Each structure stands twice: as C-alpha cells, then as structure tokens.
C-alpha cells in the first residue's frame, strides 16, 4: 500500500474535461501547489459509481473554494467518459477532470487495480500541495464512499498544515478544539479534550 507521508508516484494519462467537452493529457505533477483528491472507481455506466461521482460533483464547488482539485479515474476510455457525461443525469453535473486509465497503468501504480475484473476498486487519495499522500481510503466496490467525511478530512489536514504544532482529535470539525501533542499530556489527554468537545 502507498504510504501516507510519502510522495505519491507521478503519472501521465488521457483525461476528459467535461466543461470543455474535450480530452487532453494530464500529469499529476501539474497539480503541485494544490490539494488533490484522486478518486478511483470501478466503471462508468454501473451502479454505485454514478452515485459517488454525483456526490463529488455536488461538492466540487466547495472543494474548489478550499483549493482542492478533483481527478476521478477509472479504466474506461475518455470516449466512455464523454458519453457517460452526456447521457447520464447523475453525471451531467460533473465539472472535474475525468481521468482515463484503460491500460490499468495508473490503477496499478496506486495499487487499486483488480486483475480479475480489469477495473479499479474504490480508492480515494488525498494529496497535499507538495505531492505528499495524506490519506487513503479503499473500499470494496459494493459500498459507496462519504464525501462529507472526505471534506472533513481535507479541512483537518489543511488546519494542521497551517498549525503544525497542533493535532485534531477524532471527528474534528473547524472551530472545534485542537491541542498540541506534548509529553505532559501523555496518558492524560482527557485533561485537554473531552469526547463532547
């Protein structure tokens, strides 16, 4: 598994740009300086995938305001992405880049390729502006992911990036209490944080 805290592998692949209606090559390293959500899913025109992609599309404006770019990725071609975007009500709102990985090269690089089905499993990677992997979530294909939790995690990572002396406790939301990890509170975290805080 790719390790959090390490630089992610770069890749170049064809991608569909729904707003422009065209395909073009993208390189992950082009996105340095931005937060990136790289989101693998099994296949266009299937069942859970359009619900996830739609959820991401409905959250995209909020993510953009947070300085986050989204790249979806499946082993479909850009032609499949184009027709899916044009014909599926749930996919029409998509404005983010839809990466195409028909050879499975990128999916293998990120260790989410399922050799038996020839598709990617649900792998989601949060990458910081320096290209460092901050979070990974991989789900079996029959359960969809939660975009609200994705947003919460990015906000937490952005907070600790700006406040490197602080950590965010479980379920942290902006405005909630954070604290500095210090030997003085080892075994006594309850003195600086309560579950209801």
């Amino acid at each position: 598994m790719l390790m959090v805290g390490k630089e992610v592998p770069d890749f170049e692949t064809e991608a569909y740009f729904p707003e422009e209606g065209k395909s073009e090559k993208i390189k992950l390293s082009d996105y340095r300086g931005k937060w990136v959500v790289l989101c693998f899913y099994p296949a266009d025109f299937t069942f859970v995938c359009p619900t996830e992609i739609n959820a991401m599309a409905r959250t995209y404006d909020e993510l953009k305001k947070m300085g986050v770019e989204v790249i979806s990725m499946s082993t479909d071609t850009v032609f499949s992405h184009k027709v899916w975007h044009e014909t599926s009500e749930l996919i029409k709102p998509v404005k983010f880049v839809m990466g195409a990985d028909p050879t499975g090269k990128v999916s293998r690089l990120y260790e989410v390729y399922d050799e038996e089905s020839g598709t990617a499993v649900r792998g989601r990677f949060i990458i910081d502006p320096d290209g460092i992997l901050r979070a990974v979530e991989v789900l079996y294909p029959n359960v969809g992911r939660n975009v609200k939790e994705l947003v919460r995690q990015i906000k937490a990572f952005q907070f600790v990036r700006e406040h490197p002396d602080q950590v965010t406790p479980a379920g942290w939301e902006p405005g909630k209490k954070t604290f500095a990890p210090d030997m003085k509170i080892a075994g006594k975290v309850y003195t600086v944080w309560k579950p209801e805080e």
Partner: protein
Amino acid sequence: MPCLEPDKNLSEEAKKVLKALSELKSATKTELAEKTSFDTPLISRKLRELAEKGAVKEENGKFVITDDGLEAVKKI
C-alpha cells in the same frame, strides 16, 4: 520552416499562453498563471502542448519562446 499553424494547431488557451510568454520573454508557470488568469494545472498542460509543437522550451526552470513560437505569435 515554422511547423506551427496557430489557427489550426493550437487551442485558444495555448495561444493565450504563447502570447503571454512572448510578452514576458521568459516566465515560470506561476508567472504565466498570473499573467493569463489560468490556474497552474492548465498552464502546465498548455506549456506541454506548446513544447510538443516546438513553440516553447524550458531553460533553467523558466519557459522561453522559440523562433517557431515567435512566428506563431505573429499569426495570432
């Protein structure tokens, strides 16, 4: 002989980046992003498109326009 026919070969965004680079002489991606109001991923893609067509090249971490690129700018 110039290999570029800007109206046929270059996207509108690439033409804007090329024109901006011709005015700046040499620039980083960030400087081009500021000049064009494009975001840096788009600048990177357009610079790659321009480099593949021989219109720009990278020198010491900055992008500069080539002779073919200068010829292309005249036709934009």
